């Protein structure tokens, strides 16, 4: 029975999705119970991974390659922890946010539970076709969540996002087909062991990589992200930016380091690294010129995603850990930031930066949350973002790729530029702040707590990095 905790993060949200679809009442209670159960299971699982090394779990009693296995190493455990904690915060925030909108809330809960489980499905799957099903589960639920409130901008953004998502998934599926045609198996580990360069594997790699880059919104394929993330209901913005893009990024990471290492050349990694660097600069430049807070935060996501892809160019244990750590701390910080922005937008009627002048007097908690999350995004010392950048910089210096050092440092400055621009508005004292709605109970505190966790991630990097080293593909880091 050991290791059964591994199925809880998948099955519990699915159970909650069914129940919240079936029963009108009690959705919040069920979701909170799910959150508690998921956290407990994920913590147990992480301790097991830390203790015993990577875990495999056979489903239906059939071992891979015939059956499908679940697999949890340090990376999966860290991602599960991320989705469990950020997901819990989103659940709490959404309970407040949707409190006055029963018709929307009714569908939000099952959809969110599906989205949550889909993330965990992806994080735990060790089978490339099963990952496709997980991807589609994630894509459809993400789009449905985005269009939930039925606003014009959200609907068109959702339509675009759905096309993007389906195209990305189909590219992935075609890659899966080529891999099955070549190797005759679907298990990640088996394919990784048998991998050899051939036209089919090169094409599969290209299809899978491009598909996931599209779904992760890597520059220049980021076009769908800002409209989608900025027009979504605020809890949904938070979960899209914090978690959903990480799902496809995780998949890419798994495939590059567990499936394709024998077929990948450094040049391909450099291409992704260069696109990542371009994303940092381009996303930041556009964040600097936005006039709406949520768009600014969305473009910040475009920029921050760039850091994730630099690791493919650096390819050292530090770079790998730094990239993953960036994904982790960005999840907490960006969720906090979207929640804070959403609270302000809801309270003041819109998110035009000029309208938000002086919000710090009425909503200090939200502005604190925004600022603290900003510290992580800027990568200032003692934050989770700092740890990530330190590791990425170490890797860039170690491999002698100086120009990535410049990009990472410059990206921090640009982030400071656009975030301080937003903060300047929030902190400008104004005589009249017209509050249209009081924020729901708990929403402001949730954002603040998430932002604090993002900071704390800098203080407690060591144990998380240690967990991350369990089964890490490139070997272990500097002790």
């Amino acid at each position, binding site marked *: 029975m050991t290791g059964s905790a591994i199925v809880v993060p998948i099955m519990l949200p*699915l159970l909650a*999705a069914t129940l919240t679809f079936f029963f009108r009442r009690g959705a919040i209670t069920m979701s909170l119970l799910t959150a508690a159960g998921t956290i407990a299971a994920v913590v147990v699982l992480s301790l097991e991974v830390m203790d015993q090394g990577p875990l495999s779990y056979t489903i239906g009693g059939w071992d891979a390659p015939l059956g*499908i296995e679940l697999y949890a190493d340090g990376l999966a455990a860290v991602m599960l922890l991320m989705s469990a904690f950020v997901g819990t915060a989103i659940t709490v925030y959404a309970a407040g946010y949707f409190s*006055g909108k029963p018709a929307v809330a009714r569908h939000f809960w099952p959809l969110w539970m599906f989205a949550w489980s889909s993330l965990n499905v992806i994080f735990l799957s060790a089978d490339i076709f099963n990952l496709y099903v997980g991807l589609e589960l994630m894509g459809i639920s993400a789009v449905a969540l985005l269009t939930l409130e*039925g606003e014009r901008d959200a609907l068109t953004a959702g339509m675009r996002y759905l096309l993007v998502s389906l195209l990305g998934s189909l590219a992935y599926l075609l890659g899966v087909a080529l891999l099955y045609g070549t190797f*005759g198996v679907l298990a990640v580990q088996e394919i990784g062991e048998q991998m050899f360069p051939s036209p089919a594997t090169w094409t599969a790699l290209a299809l899978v990589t491009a598909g996931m880059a599209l779904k992760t919104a890597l520059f220049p394929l980021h076009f769908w992200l800002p409209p989608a993330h900025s027009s979504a209901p605020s809890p949904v913005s938070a979960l899209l930016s914090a978690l959903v893009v990480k799902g496809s990024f995780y998949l890419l990471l798994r495939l590059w380091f567990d499936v394709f290492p024998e077929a990948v050349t450094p040049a391909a990694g450099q291409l992704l690294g260069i696109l990542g660097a371009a994303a940092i600069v381009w996303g930041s430049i556009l964040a600097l010129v936005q006039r709406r807070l949520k768009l600014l935060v969305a473009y910040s996501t475009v920029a921050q995603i760039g850091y994730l892809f630099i690791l493919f160019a650096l390819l050292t244990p530090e770079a790998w850990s730094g990239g993953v750590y960036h994904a982790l701390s960005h999840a907490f910080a960006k969720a906090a930031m979207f929640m804070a922005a959403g609270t302000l937008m809801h309270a003041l009627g819109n998110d035009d930066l000029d309208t938000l002048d002086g919000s710090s007097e009425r909503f200090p908690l939200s502005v604190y949350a925004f600022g603290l999350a900003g510290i992580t995004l800027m990568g200032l010392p003692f934050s989770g973002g700092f740890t990530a950048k330190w590791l990425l910089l170490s890797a860039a210096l170690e491999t002698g790729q100086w120009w990535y050092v410049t990009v990472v440092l410059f990206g921090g400055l640009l982030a400071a530029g656009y975030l301080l621009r937003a903060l300047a508005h929030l902190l400008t004292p104004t005589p009249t702040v017209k509050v249209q709605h009081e924020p729901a109970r708990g929403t402001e505190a949730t954002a603040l707590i998430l932002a604090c966790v993002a900071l704390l991630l800098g203080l407690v990097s060591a144990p998380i990095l240690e967990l991350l080293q369990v089964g890490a593909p490139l070997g272990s880091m500097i002790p």
Partner: protein
Amino acid sequence: MASPTNTRLRRVLIRVPAALLAASLALLLGWSVVTLPEPATGLTGLVDAEMENSGVDHPVTAVLLNFRGYDTFLEVGVLLLALVAVWSLYLAPADRDPETAQTPVLGLLVRMLVPGILVVTVYLLWAGTSRSGGAFQAGAALAAAGELLLLAGFVRGRFRRERLVRFALAGGFGIFLALGAGFMLLGNDLLEYPPEFAYGLILFIEGALTVSIGFTLAALFFGSPLEAPEVEK
């Protein structure tokens, strides 16, 4: 407004590169297929070796519901998800007024076809254990019956016995989930059934799935049963 020439130019500008890139993609994909290693390997041998432990006689069904039952389980989840997603859009139901929709021929045809479809459904379900067929094929047939009834105005998209319909929609996934996870209490893996009950359980799950799949596919066609809400801000 763009002038016709301008539009034509724009179209060429779009379609020529699109065609070139699509053609390159076709070449690339073709090249990958042609150069696939021979002899090919697959999971046939493994499936054949484990058939007797699978509880069913047909290899595809065995893979679908036993060896790779997890995929099937998630796919039923996707189905339920799509339903919730479509309902969340609050589209007006595609109702037909019987007065205008039903011609005598259509009415008669539907009355004759639907029972036949139901028989076919049951057959497909049963056939799945030993030859091609199974819950999805059966469910698709069931859904066709539902769509016929809707198009002919026999049923409406906004139904009254909502709880019951919801049960039919979510029941398949719910039962799959409950049975798949429930046996974990006996020390089994997820979705692992005790071998002595495997055949019965799989048939039972397939039955429940057939109903849910049929209802869900039809419901995807029907539109949302719920009143569109007042704009909630």
